[in-house]
């Protein structure tokens, strides 16, 4: 449902645009129904009839489009406005994109879940077409000619019979007095006439990014601003017993220290607490912090040990758990005496490590907060600060900067809350910058998961029964202290929706209590679920002596809409009618990736291997073929990746390809070396030497992205590349070395020829 409103005369736009501008807003109820509880407490229904989109056509021909979604590298602040500009028939060189502040009028702004295009594609088009309609009406009235005799071209209305022309800017004021057309009156461009949709549009802020302009959160400054570095409780939920800041205060440039109280459980978006050192510059703050002497009360999580916890998760996954989806009778089939195959898979906690660490600048004056933050979710920043400082939400202004990477970390408001708390405490603007060590040690980690897989295999090598159990501390533990089970939204991520054609199939989920903050990381639960499902499928293929591609096609079965056997399946907030799981599309991308990579022509060469996997997530279908080389010393190279993508209608193929190239690198980091562990509740890793990120020499040398042309409703592209890549990489490692990867990261496995069997080298 979309509703366009003419707000050209409305009070709230004064100061934003010149008088006489035609200003339209569009209200949309996005299809997205986030399964998890939104931290801001907003539900999709709250978004009804709140404008999500603003477009203003001004008398100087400038077309201002507000980008209400956060820009963290996907190019969304270019892509969505380009859709509107296309239907408006605007001159792209006159389009000015304004980053929207946090404002509930924009509806849900949390830029996560890979749904920006999915949720806003139609409304952008409707908004553009409505404005174009009104501009034509205005011109027709002025010239006293029929509207249908007028046409538009790049920001100009033209009446060819009389040769009259007027620019959108010249028509804006009279158009602003017209009513908004009924949607039935709108004429959308035929696909063949699209100028921007499906084409490559240069990134809007490219020159700023290439010349070092201060666009990021960490670049923001205010007059009189001080700098803060915060010593946080080393164990999640810990508190200060006592502290001594005498030496700290002697450091040149240090002004004071401020104690930040511990959070009130559940932690949600609150600050972790600790002691802030306030100084003239970042360096002085860091130096002063080193001189703090703090005695901590580490609290109940001080006994948390990630290796013991791993064993607990594994033990849970070996017991019957909560049934999420069931077809047939797996137990009866397992009892029939067929060949049984079992495997345990494990993925550790993972940190985000965006290149720009968490950072925020805040100012508090006259009971109001202004904060600049690289946030994916400015409305949650507003509500979390309002709650912390006990002020109304309307007294919190959140300016969204460009994000130096987000990957889900910056959907969290904790670092902005810290800045606001300190600004109030010291009565001056303050910038809180997290060090890399802070970022790694105090993240909202992607969950760790133990997965148990069991299959009964028939004579043809195909499973007749399939059981999968996944156990992971859930993200909902952030908001509910007793949450131990995965919520339907996260179980839907590659688990409930296992797409195989097996008569007896059961999906289960076991309980797990969180001891650290769990959060969203690019593709989230799909990371561990797709790893287990698609590596186990590869194991069965090899046991059956079949080519993994043929075997996968058999497992997926004939093209059909997947029957989820009545399971609770939120489908990434999309309706199952518009976005069903279509196994035909899965098969199609799989066959395309195989064809483009030359899968069927591959030759067995010692020390090399190919792996394949296909996965649907965020309503997009992705198949990936990874080629690896493993030398005698066990060093891994990834010379080539081929990824086939069916994401429905694509807005900008260059941006989409870029997301999948990036996903392959992201997946490489996860698979090669991604691992967060804890000892006595303290995170063991701290910087890039012990939490390595793939470098140019380790990342895939060449990633080829093959996009399927489609007019289907648009799907996500930011996240879906990660899950199949990781599984395909691990399957390739097996093909090259004969060693099964059942635990991530690969760095725990000895891949050298002399190396032992695929047993994990850690406890």
């Amino acid at each position, binding site marked *: 449902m979309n509703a366009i409103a003419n707000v050209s005369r409305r009070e709230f736009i004064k100061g934003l645009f010149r008088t006489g501008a035609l200003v339209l807003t569009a209200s949309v109820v996005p299809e997205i129904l986030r399964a998890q509880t939104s931290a801001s407490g907003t539900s999709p229904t709250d978004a009804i009839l709140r404008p999500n989109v603003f477009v203003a056509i001004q008398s100087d021909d400038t077309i201002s489009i507000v980008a209400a979604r956060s820009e963290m590298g996907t*190019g969304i602040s270019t892509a969505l406005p380009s859709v509107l500009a296309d239907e408006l028939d605007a001159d792209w060189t006159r389009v000015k994109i304004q980053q929207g502040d946090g404002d509930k009028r924009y509806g849900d702004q949390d830029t996560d879940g890979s749904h920006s295009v999915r949720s806003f594609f139609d409304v952008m088009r409707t908004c553009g077409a409505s404005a174009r309609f009104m501009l034509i009406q205005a011109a027709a009235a002025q010239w006293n000619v029929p509207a249908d005799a007028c046409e538009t071209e790049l920001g100009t209305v033209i009446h060819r019979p009389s040769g009259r022309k007027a620019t959108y800017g010249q028509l804006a004021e009279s158009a602003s007095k017209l009513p908004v057309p009924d949607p039935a009156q709108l004429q959308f461009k035929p696909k063949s006439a699209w100028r921007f949709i499906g084409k490559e549009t240069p990134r809007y802020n490219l020159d*700023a990014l*290439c010349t070092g302009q201060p666009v990021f959160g*960490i670049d923001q400054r205010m007059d009189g601003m001080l700098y803060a570095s915060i010593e946080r409780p080393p164990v999640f939920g810990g508190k200060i017993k006592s502290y001594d800041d005498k030496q700290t205060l002697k450091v040149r440039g240090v002004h004071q220290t401020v104690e930040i109280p511990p959070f009130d459980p559940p932690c949600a978006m609150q600050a972790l607490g600790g002691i802030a050192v306030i100084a003239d510059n970042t360096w002085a703050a860091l130096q002063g912090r080193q001189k703090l002497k703090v005695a901590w009360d580490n609290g109940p999580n001080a006994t948390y040990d990630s290796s013991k916890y791993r064993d607990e998760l594994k033990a849970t996954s070996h017991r019957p758990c909560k049934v999420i989806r069931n077809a047939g009778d797996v137990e009866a089939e397992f009892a029939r005496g067929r060949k049984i195959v079992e495997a345990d898979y494990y993925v550790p906690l993972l940190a985000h490590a965006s*290149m720009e660490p968490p950072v925020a600048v805040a100012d508090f004056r006259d009971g109001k907060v202004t904060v600049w933050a690289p946030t994916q979710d400015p409305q949650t920043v507003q509500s979390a600060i309002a709650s912390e400082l006990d002020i109304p939400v309307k007294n919190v202004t959140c300016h969204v900067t460009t994000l130096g990477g987000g990957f889900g970390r910056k959907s969290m408001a904790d670092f902005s809350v810290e800045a606001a708390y300190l600004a109030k405490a010291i009565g001056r603007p303050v910038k809180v910058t997290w*060090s890399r060590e802070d970022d790694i040690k105090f993240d909202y980690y992607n969950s760790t998961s133990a997965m148990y897989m069991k299959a009964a295999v028939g004579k043809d090598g195909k499973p007749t029964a399939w059981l999968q159990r996944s156990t992971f501390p859930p993200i909902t533990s952030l908001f509910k202290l007793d949450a131990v089970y995965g919520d339907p939204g996260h179980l839907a991520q590659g688990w409930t929706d296992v797409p195989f054609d097996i008569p007896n199939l059961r999906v289960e989920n076991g309980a797990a209590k969180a001891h650290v903050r769990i959060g969203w990381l690019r593709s989230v639960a799909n990371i561990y679920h797709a790893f287990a499902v698609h590596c186990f499928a590869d194991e069965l293929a090899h046991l059956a002596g079949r080519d993994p591609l043929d075997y996968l096609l058999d497992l997926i079965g004939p093209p059909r809409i997947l029957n989820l056997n009545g399971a609770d399946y939120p489908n990434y907030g999309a309706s199952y009618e518009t976005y069903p799981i279509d196994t035909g599309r899965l098969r199609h991308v799989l066959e395309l990736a195989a064809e483009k990579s030359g899968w069927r022509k591959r030759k067995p060469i010692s020390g090399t291997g190919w792996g394949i996997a296909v996965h649907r997530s965020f309503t997009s279908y992705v198949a990936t073929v990874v080629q690896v080389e493993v030398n005698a010393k066990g060093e891994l190279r990834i010379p080539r990746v081929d990824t086939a993508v069916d994401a429905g209608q694509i807005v900008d193929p260059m941006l989409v390809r870029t997301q999948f190239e990036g996903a392959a690198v992201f997946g490489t980091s996860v698979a090669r070396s991604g691992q967060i562990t804890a000892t006595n509740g303290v995170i063991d890793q701290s910087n890039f030497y012990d939490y390595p990120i793939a470098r140019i020499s380790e990342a895939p040398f060449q*990633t080829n992205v093959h996009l399927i042309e489609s007019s289907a409703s648009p799907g996500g592209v930011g996240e879906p590349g990660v899950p199949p890549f990781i599984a395909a990489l691990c399957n390739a490692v097996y093909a090259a070395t004969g060693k099964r990867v059942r635990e991530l990261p690969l760095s725990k496995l000895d891949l050298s020829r002399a190396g032992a069997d695929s047993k994990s080298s850690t406890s």
Partner: protein
Amino acid sequence: MIRLKVNGVEKSFDGDPQMPLLWYLRDELGLMGTKFGCGVGLCGACTVEQGGKAIRSCVTVMSSAAGSEITTIEGLGRGRLHPVQKAWMRLNVPQCGYCQSGQMMQAAALLKNNHKPNDADIDKAMAGNICRCGTYQKIRAAIKVAAEEVA
């Protein structure tokens, strides 16, 4: 008093001589193009040029910058766009863009000494610069494009 040149302009500093150049550039001079990434010389986000060489400003203390000429991304093209910046734009290299100042400074230093780097040269020179978004493939291609203009 420490004296140095930053992007051709004489500067003096009388603060902590142990302060890393990175924080001097950012917090004192307001040159925000040079980025903080790790603070220990592992990621390359803070790369600047000192006397023609790419260095990590997060582990270069002010006392060792004394008397030297520092070039940051803001001064790389000397008022115009450097060939690497042009190539970066032409190939749409950045995703989030945060690491790209450091990537471009490192690439510019590589091209000073090697006008026709091959893949191995590029991997070796750029291995200290992390890009979390994963733009490496485009970085490699852009360096080759820039090399054509430099040569």
